[in-house]
């Protein structure tokens, strides 16, 4: 029999070695993705086989023969096979058509319009789909392909299976986008230990290195998203105080404004351009080169050739600064709002962390420095810092840690009430996990059902917020208007994911609601995708259930043995023999792969230890009674 450690109450024991798997940190970015691994609080990014770049461009190529290529190789095909390459797919995660209209024109692939439901209330809008080559794909599937590549990169670098990960998301990601990200991981065969907000991960990377205390701001301007977060670090606890951002603002917008400027200049020269997707991609590539060159240079000259009409352009740093000034101003105003939410002045902030490739742009750095009146920190590579933090968190979750991350919900959650007004149930910046209920009533005599519409956002009207789910609480018995008491409970877990339940309090009619993610993927679609894309989906599920059975059995054994040690005087030989025999059988079964046998023998252990448990409870009661007058006990 293996030696077992008995842990002090209240301490979280490390998982047993045999169940301890490698867990990595993944920054699933709009433009680039990075995977990292941490051991002993030292985190390193995982590079490709030849020790080159840590960055995997978030670009996927779908060949007509079904081959899927991810990363640099896919990015190299952007020009030649534009219609078969998907980039910046993160912008579409969990999004419906209405949301992407604004960006659709700038996307180099065709966005499929989901069927419009005839009755707006009968069906919810679906997530957008992409026409790529000869396939129709959801953003979730494309993201899953990127995640598979990161998983296999990690497995090659670590020479071990990798099944668990902490994946980062923008703090501003709503429930639909978070669910979509989790779905993508599921498709890629990755168990998500936790979704962590990107700025929080970045702060973690800096915090652990420097042992910092005080208030810190994380300014994260990536390819497609902007996030600003305020964190308080004290005694090993990282508390997110306030967070804000824009899910559709980033360095890609800098590229687009450069393209627009070039096209406007060509138009002035009398050139009429027709821009197909290949030309659009080439132009974006030129724009990116200009942007990157202007980080170190004051001006850059480029030649643009579309349909044999060549023009040359000179872009100076000052030109570029002027082009992007409105976008930078927007980030500054969001930052001020977030400071205000937390009732904090810029000078209270002890340090500012820069995250995201777009923070290399000098005008961005200058704006941040001037707002906070200090030079921002950037000694960790802004492209890698998020993955580094995610890896540290993955190690903390699997291996135990003295540090703790307390995060908040980024957007308020509410319900639609009369007249399309939103009644907020959980305010933004509330610490998670959280469970909150609110009571509603009927407004008509004899009303037997109630539509419950869950929305996320800060605006007062329903149509200005994001619709997350709708469901009907039915079976309310006939009552006068206002007599029913319907309690709707929102639960947000540590990943920031929501579940909702409703209950009529006077009768107990309950609606257990699987929140149908409005823009997410339905369970059916998910099952089909799993079938299509993963032959071993079933095995995978079995394996997970088996692991869970082993964890549960181990906990059972430890609990019984702890009790045997604590109350040894209550054990007679018969109990001891029965329990030890049951433990031995269960341990033997745990070496095997039959989940049912493990569960049955865990049940048998429970039965074998029942007489002992009863003696323990009886003694507890006797001890309590000994100190009391009989009159106090008998009713």
């Amino acid at each position, binding site marked *: 029999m293996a030696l077992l450690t008995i842990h002090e109450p209240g301490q979280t024991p490390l998982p047993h070695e045999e169940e301890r798997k490698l867990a990595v940190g993944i920054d699933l970015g709009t433009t680039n993705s990075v995977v990292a691994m941490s051991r002993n609080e030292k985190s390193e990014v995982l590079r490709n086989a030849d020790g080159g770049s840590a960055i995997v461009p978030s670009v996927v190529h779908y060949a007509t023969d079904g081959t899927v290529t991810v990363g640099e190789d896919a990015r190299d095909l952007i020009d030649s096979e534009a219609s078969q390459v998907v980039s910046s797919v993160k912008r579409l995660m969990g999004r419906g058509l209405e949301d992407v209209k604004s960006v659709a024109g700038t996307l180099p692939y065709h966005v499929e319009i989901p069927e419009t439901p005839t009755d707006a209330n009968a069906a919810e809008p679906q997530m957008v789909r992409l026409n790529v080559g000869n396939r129709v794909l959801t953003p979730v599937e494309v993201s899953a392909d990127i995640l598979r590549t990161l998983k296999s990169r990690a497995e090659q670098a670590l020479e071990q299976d990798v099944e668990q990960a902490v994946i980062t998301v923008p703090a501003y990601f709503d429930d639909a986008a978070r669910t979509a990200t989790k779905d993508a991981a599921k498709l890629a065969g990755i168990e998500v230990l936790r979704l962590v907000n990107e700025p929080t991960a970045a702060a973690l990377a800096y915090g652990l290195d420097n042992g910092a205390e005080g208030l810190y701001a994380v300014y994260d301007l990536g390819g497609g998203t902007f996030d600003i977060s305020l964190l308080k670090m004290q005694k090993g606890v990282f508390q997110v105080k306030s967070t804000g951002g824009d899910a559709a603002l980033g360095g890609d917008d800098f590229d687009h404004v450069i393209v627009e400027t070039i096209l406007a200049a060509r138009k002035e020269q009398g050139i009429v351009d027709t821009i197909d997707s290949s030309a659009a991609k080439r132009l974006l590539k030129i724009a990116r080169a200009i942007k990157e060159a202007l980080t170190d240079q004051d001006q850059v000259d480029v030649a643009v050739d579309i349909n044999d009409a060549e023009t040359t352009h000179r872009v100076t740093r000052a030109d570029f600064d002027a082009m992007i000034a409105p976008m930078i101003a927007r980030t500054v105003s969001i930052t001020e709002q977030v400071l*205000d939410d937390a009732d904090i002045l810029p000078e209270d902030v002890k340090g500012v962390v820069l995250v995201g490739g777009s923070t290399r742009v000098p005008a961005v750095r200058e704006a941040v420095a001037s707002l906070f009146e200090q030079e921002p920190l950037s000694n960790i590579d802004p492209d890698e810092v998020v993955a580094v933090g995610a890896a540290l968190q993955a190690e903390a979750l699997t291996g*135990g840690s003295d540090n703790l991350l307390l995060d908040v919900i980024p957007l308020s959650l509410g319900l639609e009430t009369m007249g399309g007004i939103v009644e907020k149930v959980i305010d933004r910046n509330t610490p998670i996990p959280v469970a909150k209920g609110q009571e509603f009533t009927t407004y008509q005599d004899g009303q037997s059902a109630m539509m419950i519409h869950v929305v996320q956002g800060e605006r007062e009207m329903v149509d200005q917020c994001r619709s997350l789910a709708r469901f009907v609480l039915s079976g309310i018995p006939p009552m006068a208007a206002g007599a029913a008491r319907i309690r709707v409970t929102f639960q947000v877990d540590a990943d920031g994911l929501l579940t909702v339940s409703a209950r009529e309090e006077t009768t107990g009619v309950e609606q257990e609601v699987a929140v149908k993610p409005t823009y997410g993927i339905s369970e059916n679609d998910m099952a089909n995708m799993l079938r299509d894309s993963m032959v071993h989906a079933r095995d995978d599920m079995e394996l997970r259930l088996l692991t869970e059975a082993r964890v*549960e059995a181990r906990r059972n054994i430890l609990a019984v043995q702890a009790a045997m040690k604590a109350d040894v005087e209550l054990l007679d030989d018969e109990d001891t023999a029965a329990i030890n025999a049951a433990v031995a059988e269960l341990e033997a079964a745990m070496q095997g792969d039959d989940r049912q046998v493990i569960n049955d023998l865990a049940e048998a252990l429970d039965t074998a230890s029942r007489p002992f*448990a009863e003696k323990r409870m009886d003694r*507890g009661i006797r001890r*309590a009674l000994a100190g009391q007058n009989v009159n106090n006990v008998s009713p």
Partner: protein
Amino acid sequence: MMTAASEQSKSNPSGDKTCWSCKGPVAAVALFCDTCGAIQAPGQLDHFARFDIPRDFNVDIDAVEAQYLKQQQALHPDRFATKSAREKSLSQQQAASLNDAFETLKNPVSRAEYMMRMNGVEPEGGEGQTVNDPALLMEAMEMREALDDAGDRAAIDAIIRDVRKMARDCEKEVATAINGGAYDAARKLTTRLRYLLKMAQEARAKKARLAAA
């Protein structure tokens, strides 16, 4: 005697209940089982009991926060990422209850309302409900006009200072009313406090808008 007592399987006269994990006795208020170390369900603790402080409106919020962080260190779901589904779910419930307790006590308005409800008094005029105290309505109208008229940073700063002072004084009055059991007065004062804090926030927001422009 024994029969009567063992019928109370969930909680016996000592306030113990049965630990779901090792099946032995565990104190009803315990976060973890003494014997096997398993996390327990949150139970029906009130917010003050959760932090082991007296039911007094005047709370040392820094001390409560230290206690809150210490408990989160042990109870947060991040500590249970590799544990069984049941332990994960209990940790989730515990951490949510703890967040609720701290958030409620942290803010003087929600703390006052919570204490009124504990004493069976329903607080008046939550957000969106009408307030019918003419004196407060008049005061509110005047403050709002003053804020609308304030055109520069200095003027808004002056308003913020005034409102903050009024809020602090009002909070003291709330404390006296609630601790003294004068709930009618407490209801009115809490409404005023809520209003003053909202004004301060609006003034700060206006200042931020002015700075951004």
